[in-house]
């Protein structure tokens, strides 16, 4: 019998048919070479069997076990949202500052323009209680300038309506300062005109309040950023 080399593995596993098993057994008993090979194969099997069980790396376990699949997309979304909120914070603070300056000078110029068209020039006495009936008629029937506008003009006699209109289109620091000066003068010089002045500004108030509030966006940016950082740390810890 030739050396049954290819049968030796099946032989040591007892996987041969009964007759073949007996034949190989007989040959191995008589053949030193095949006996040595059988011994080597058995030793090899023992070594393979002695291999330590592969331990899944720590990289694999927690990621499969605990990290939900939506964590990474959520982190990305939060990062983008935070960036957008920062942008909106900057934009809204710029817009609200410009609005504030523009509305201050525009309101004043509008009041001055209406005063010119009606030629109903009022002296600072308009701030006196005598002007109360005109205010009581309401905004629809009172194209006349307010007491505060009159007072402002009285305190700033050099400011012309044209200059104020220019200031509204392209406010320079000088015009802005004048506008602030006027409104401050109106507020302090004519306390009774203050309610009506607030009523005139009321048209620009709703635009500024919810979405143009920079603090809303800043808070949102910090909030989203904090969540994004927390998610990132969570993801990194599990990887």
């Amino acid at each position, binding site marked *: 019998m030739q050396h049954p*080399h*290819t049968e*030796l*593995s*099946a032989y040591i*596993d007892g*996987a041969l048919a009964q007759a073949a098993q007996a034949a190989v057994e007989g040959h191995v008993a008589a053949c030193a070479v095949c006996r*040595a*090979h059988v*011994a*080597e*194969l*058995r*030793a*090899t*099997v*023992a*070594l*393979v*069997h*002695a*291999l*330590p069980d592969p331990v899944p790396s720590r990289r694999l376990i927690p990621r*499969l076990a605990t990290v939900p699949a939506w964590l990474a997309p959520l982190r990305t979304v939060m990062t983008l949202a935070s960036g957008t909120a920062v942008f909106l914070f900057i934009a809204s603070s710029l817009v609200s500052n410009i609005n504030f300056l523009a509305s201050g000078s525009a309101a004043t110029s509008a009041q001055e323009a209406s005063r010119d068209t009606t030629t109903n020039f009022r002296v600072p006495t308009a701030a006196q209680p005598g002007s109360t009936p005109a205010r009581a008629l309401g905004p629809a029937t009172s194209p006349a300038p307010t007491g505060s506008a009159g007072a402002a003009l009285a305190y700033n006699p050099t400011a012309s309506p044209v200059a104020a209109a220019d200031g509204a289109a392209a406010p320079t620091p000088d015009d802005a300062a004048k506008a602030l000066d006027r409104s401050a003068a109106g507020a302090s010089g004519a306390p009774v005109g203050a309610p009506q002045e607030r009523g005139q500004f009321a048209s620009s108030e709703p635009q500024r309040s919810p979405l143009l509030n920079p603090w809303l966006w800043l808070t949102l940016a910090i909030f989203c950023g904090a969540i994004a950082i927390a998610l990132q740390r969570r993801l990194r810890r599990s990887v």
Partner: protein
Amino acid sequence: MQDALFSAWRSIASFQGLSFRAWLFRIATNRALDHLRSRKRRPELPLEPPEDDDVTWAEPTAPGPDLNQLAGDREALALVETALGALPAEQRTALLLRDVEGFPYEDIAVITSVEIGTVKSRIHRGRLAVRNALIARGWRGPDG
């Protein structure tokens, strides 16, 4: 892994005859082999080498440590692991299913979806490759 379990869950209806463990191994093995095949784009050893029966039995090159010194030795186990890693995936699969998991040849044939003769051949070739790798590093076998 979860891929294999998901496949197992989907095809739970096909579970019949075979032991549950072998059935699960069959699915996991197929998924793993599919994964290996799809990952390896470069040409490699043919999955099933030509069947030349006279597989070479390498002779010891120089006297070296015998099995008593090697067994339990980390170096030997590392050698075995390296040799296993160099095997074609199908041979390695059959060898591990037999020598580590202890499946009978019939189950391995079902798990790997091949004939039992192919299982026999793969296991033998795998063992021979590991043995030759050990011999090449000076191992002289159990008898010295």
